[in-house]
């Protein structure tokens, strides 16, 4: 009986939630940064030319590369700080969802053009 149930043993909640919270908040930051860099590249000719990492793709190459690098950096930093801690997930989720929805909205051109 006990050997039969070995593969479905009850999961425990002893692991701190910090590692998960770090991934969630970093993803919100990443989504938001895509929109922020896109708006910046659209508004400033200097930033637009700085964002051309690969000419055939144009500023999109820099916009997305910068957002991804900063998302991964944020994930690594938050993970290092929170992995052994329990954090206030309600607040982390609220911030992450807000950033995610802002990222969605701000990539929509009629809204992005308001800035």
């Amino acid at each position, binding site marked *: 009986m006990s050997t039969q149930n070995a*593969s*479905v*043993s*009850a*999961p*425990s*909640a002893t*692991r701190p*939630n910090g*590692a*998960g*919270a770090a*991934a*969630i908040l*970093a*993803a919100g930051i*990443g*989504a938001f940064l*895509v*929109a922020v860099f*896109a708006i910046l590249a659209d508004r400033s000719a200097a930033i637009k030319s700085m964002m051309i990492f*690969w000419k*055939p*793709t*144009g500023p*999109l*190459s820099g*916009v*997305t590369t910068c*957002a*991804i690098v900063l*998302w991964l950096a944020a994930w690594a930093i938050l993970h290092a700080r929170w992995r052994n801690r329990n954090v206030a*997930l*309600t607040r982390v*989720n609220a911030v*992450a*969802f807000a950033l*995610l*929805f802002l*990222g*969605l909205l701000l*990539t*929509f*051109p*009629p809204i992005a053009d308001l800035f």
Partner: protein
Amino acid sequence: MVYMEITARSLWTLIHGMGFGALYLMACSGALVELYRRYCTHNQSLPTERDEKFLRIYLVTMAALAWLAVLTGAYILYPWYRAVPPPGTANLSAFPQRLLMASPTTSGWHSIGMEWKEHVAWIAPISITMAAGVVLQYGRNLKNYPQLRSAVLVFVWISLLAAGVAGFFGAMINKNAPVEGGPVIHIVQGEQK
């Protein structure tokens, strides 16, 4: 003799849109059902290690599909889409962006459709990579973290939405100004009937 042929650029469009994008969209619904079914609080049964391994592989595969979709889109197709025609070019069929912008009835597909698609699509791989990361780290224990679980579900929903927007505009833009050109590939050859 009749041929069924496709250009290399059309083939890449198919690989990007149907191979990676559409497959990702279909996989999203499966992931949402599986995550909800497996971790919803009124489900008392515990997933086996085999089920758990399947979900991990499934989400990692989805993340790979999402990254392949955005990377092929941005670095293979987009340069063809935004190519600038030489001055005086009358036939813009090989320059989709310029073809769309040449008419007021189609310019919105670029100025709203492509401008949104090229950025919003990146939210999908970011979101699904996070979901895969959390499931890889917590596995079956995720059942005991309702807030982590909710966040994963919200991000997977948003990744479905972002990929859906990108897929819709990709299909419509390709309908109005297809990315064409490059070597011609004969798929099927047969007799005229």
